[in-house]
């Protein structure tokens, strides 16, 4: 029996900030890069790793129904997400107003203000968002074991020398989003 859409869905399929929830081989690559950062004395704060595809599906279609005029009955199904987007009135017929309100409750619960993507490197377990910083020089090992000393600025993940080190581990920077690193830079 499908569960009607509404705010009760918001806490299901929570996001993760653990590298353990990434998918291989990116999981091992990211962990190796994190270990190198830790050994080098950099400060790392991870915000996000895996964002479940089921959560992305709920966010994407709740926004489409609430804000973009999608007919609730036109939302596709997803295996493992037994949701009914179509609310009915006392007469048993679809109630579009109630359906949009329930979808909007989900949008508010998720804190959505911009159109959510349906798929991403995060939903694939191939991305990690993290803030990196250090003071002074950073001497860090690349994947081949050779150390490099980074003297350049900024002393954050935006540093291109650090991004070269990350790339040696298969952890690539996405330029448009300061915290975002992934398997291919997307």
């Amino acid at each position, binding site marked *: 029996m499908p569960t009607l859409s509404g705010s009760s869905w918001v806490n299901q399929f929570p996001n993760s900030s653990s590298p353990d929830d990434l998918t291989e081989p990116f999981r091992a690559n990211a962990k190796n890069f994190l270990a190198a950062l830790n050994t080098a004395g950099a400060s790392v704060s991870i915000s996000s790793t895996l964002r479940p595809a089921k959560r992305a599906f709920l966010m994407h279609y709740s926004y489409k129904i609430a804000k973009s005029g999608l007919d609730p009955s036109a939302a596709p199904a997803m295996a493992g997400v037994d949701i009914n987007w179509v609310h009915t009135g006392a007469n048993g017929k679809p109630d579009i107003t109630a359906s949009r309100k329930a979808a909007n409750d989900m949008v508010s619960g998720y804190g959505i203000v911009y159109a959510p993507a349906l798929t991403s490197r995060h939903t694939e377990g191939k991305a990690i968002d993290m803030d990196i910083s250090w003071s002074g020089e950073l001497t860090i090992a690349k994947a081949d074991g050779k150390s490099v000393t980074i003297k350049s600025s900024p002393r954050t993940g935006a540093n291109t020398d650090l991004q070269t080190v990350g790339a040696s581990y298969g952890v690539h920077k996405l330029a448009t989003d300061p915290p*975002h690193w992934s398997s291919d830079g997307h």
Partner: protein
Amino acid sequence: MKLMLLIPLTLFLAFCGGARSTDTRSMDYSARIGTAVQSGGHVCFSINNAKLSPKSVVSLVTPSNPQSVAEAEIIGHSATGCPGIRNETPPQSGYELKLVQGTIQDFMPVIAVSGGADQFTSAASTVTAHLGTDAANASFRSCTSSDGVHLTVWRAKPLQSTRLWHQYYYMGQDLEPTCTEKDTR
């Protein structure tokens, strides 16, 4: 002989004028423009300026369509600032605001400009601002990248004029990207 002196002098003055113009163009707006977000009944404000006083007026520009301007005043300093402003060099100062006129949408980062709403003009759902003689019709824009929002202020038309100010705000959600390279570089 006079002509020989006049030409270099003219070139020198032209250079000085050009240099002054360039200096104005590269004026740093980061102490005057910041980011604000409303959530849970609170409005946070982050900016590269630690010297703003309580009761100071801040105008809040919603840069997505339809654009609008609300007015707020500073309640006091906040230790954390807005959560999506992260790892900035130098770190930004945090304040808490109280809305005094108009509204802003929950969770939507808005562009916060020191000073009152009288520096803004709204027409056809578009807001422009007089930010000084060199930015008499400044405009506002927001766009999304993969995980966050790029907020920008432009000297004149967005993407077609000099970008005066830029701030990335991390949303922590997968978004459908809408930004161009001019927004994010």
